């Protein structure tokens, strides 16, 4: 009785057959869920990264500027366009309220992204693939991406970062 103390000997009451069945099923499912995450880290192709470095907005900005200078191929709406070689360190910076640079990548190649912010938290939301990661000031999030589709992709910011939040949209172009 929810409002009354339990009956005498409640601890020793046998668990009903169906309740026992259900609990067993639920327990098995729960354990599978846990091990599934671990197994996916070994065999799955989409996992949050193991690598984060400490940085500062000054340091990360310097690295990003140097990266842009090294691989710049043009400009789009005032934002530098950069085409880095596969298997290299790619720097992407989020700041109120834009993503820099625009990246041109090749399908099927790996790129080691370093993503950080110069001011507040931002959200890296790649559309339409819908992959979402957080971007922090002071932290360099190293994510190794391998694009598996071609075309033009938007980087929507999906972490509130002030009044210009909705204007913060970047671009990634993936070629064959």
């Amino acid at each position: 009785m929810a409002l009354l103390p339990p009956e005498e000997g409640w601890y020793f009451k046998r668990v009903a057959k169906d309740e026992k069945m259900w609990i067993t099923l639920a327990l098995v499912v729960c354990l599978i869920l846990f091990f599934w995450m671990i197994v996916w880290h070994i065999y799955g192709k989409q996992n949050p990264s193991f690598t984060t470095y400490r940085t500062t907005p000054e340091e990360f900005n310097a690295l990003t500027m140097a990266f842009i200078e090294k691989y710049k191929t043009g400009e789009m709406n005032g934002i530098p366009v950069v085409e880095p070689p596969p298997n290299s360190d790619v720097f992407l910076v989020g700041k109120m309220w834009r993503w820099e640079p625009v990246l041109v990548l090749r399908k099927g190649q790996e790129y080691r992204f370093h993503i950080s912010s110069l001011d507040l938290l931002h959200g890296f939301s790649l559309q339409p693939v819908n992959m979402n990661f957080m971007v922090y000031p002071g932290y360099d999030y190293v994510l190794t991406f391998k694009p598996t589709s071609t075309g033009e992709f938007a980087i929507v910011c999906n972490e509130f970062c002030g009044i210009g939040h909705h204007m913060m949209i970047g671009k990634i172009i993936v070629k064959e």
Partner: protein
Amino acid sequence: MFRTCDITGLKVDLRAERLIQLNAVMAVVSLLIGVIAALLLVLTRWQVVHLLPVDWYYRVLTLHGLNALIFWIVFFEIAGLYFGSTVVLNSRMSSPKFGWLALILMVLGFLLVNFTILSGNADVLMTSYAPLQAHPIYYLGIILFAVGALIGVFLFFANLLIARKERTYGDSLPLFTFGLVAAAIIATLTLATGAIIYIPTLLWSLGIIKSMDAGVYKLVWWGLGHSSQQINVTAMIAVWYLGAFLTVGGASINEKVSRFAFVFYVIGINVASAHHLLVDPGPSPAWKVFNTSYIMYIAVLASMIHAFAVPSAIESAQRRRGFTKGLFDWLKNAPWGNPAFSAVFLSIIIFGFIGGVTGVVNGMEQTNIIVHNTLSIPGHFKGTVVGGTTLAFMGATYYLIPLIFRKKIAFFGLAKIQPWVFGLGIAVLAVSMYILGAFGVPRRHYDITFSGGPFTYTFNPATDFFWVLFAVGGIAAVVGALMWILIVVFSVFFGEPVRGPQDMQLQVASPPPPAKEHGGFEAPGTLTLTLLFMGVFLIFLLLNWGWLAAMWEVR
């Protein structure tokens, strides 16, 4: 100091009763603010209307978060804690003076927070992620509220210690109060974490501390932020058992099972705050996987246990009354005309099928990649804390009004349909938000046409349909909530008095006849429902992992 309730026979400490009433009133005031804010937000995110200007959108979003998710629920829970530790145990309030102090602090905090938000000094959203910074008074208000609530929680434990010493309840607490114990334990660590994060943040906003590390802030904040939601889950389930008891005389078919499930919550549920950091830099995958799994899904197991235990309590009582035909005779003949029953049952269904199914998938380390910060996230938690906890609390209030306020429920005909209007509205809202998020629509975002940005992006045209559903569901939910507020306010302040059991519109069920020995299943109808739930859950799980596998590779 006491009155004896002429309907339930319980001894009511009048000093506790007064505090229960006042906290409940504050809860309703907060909900009203939260609901008005919700309407404004629905009509803004639906960009066909796009009602609010950009700065007010984020301001009202902050207002909505604080009032609907924190103030409404915590005021109500404090009232519930006092009820569960005094009235239910036929015991006394340990210190009414501290109860008043708690209330004053909470009201003061409520006022300071709302004032700073409305004056534009806290456009930081409920999470207030550093380096975003609000005015110091905002943080002070939250600290005062949290301290007041913590005093209320300590009073709960003090009441229990007194009741235990004065032996007013025997060896084991009633299940409802036991559930509240679990909730209060979680509340203790929640509020303690709140102090650990908000005091330095206040000092930072005053310039006394020079900087606030973004990673440390978010990690610690969610120790407060999600744990507070786990309080709500636990309190909701306690209310489910209470509802089963009052409406049909249902009791857990095995107290040991139900109690262990609550203990599993105590042990495993709080670490799952980690699911807010799954796609964040900083903590390792080991930390993420271990913690997000609620320590190997101990707490998810507990939820699944309650998912069986609560409906089976209802089914078992009904079967003993003679509703034994087929699988669902017991459910068809349940007191659907009792708004507390319909609210509680809808809460169970919505929490399970919408909140629960989406929640586990969102919280797995890898699938979080395809949902984080999309509209799917609020879609999920509309299913849990709004369709689940809030609806259950609304149902409980239909007994609170006659039993604690001693008033008849006004507009009773309206009350009977209110849970349906609210519940179905929230269900439609939650599902449409989740689907919009699956298309990549971001949460907490003013303009998904990105006007003013260097580039643009157009979401899948199918989203237009779901935005309409979003608006329909949202407006219906607002209507359902306003109906409830109207009924409650009218009943409490203008309603006819309850002079005795003859004035009760809702029955307080008498215990059903004792169970007959039989070899079969105790609750085959419930088993069917839970197996159906498991099927839906597994299908949703597989779909999401399939979608994840189709994404770009990342590690």
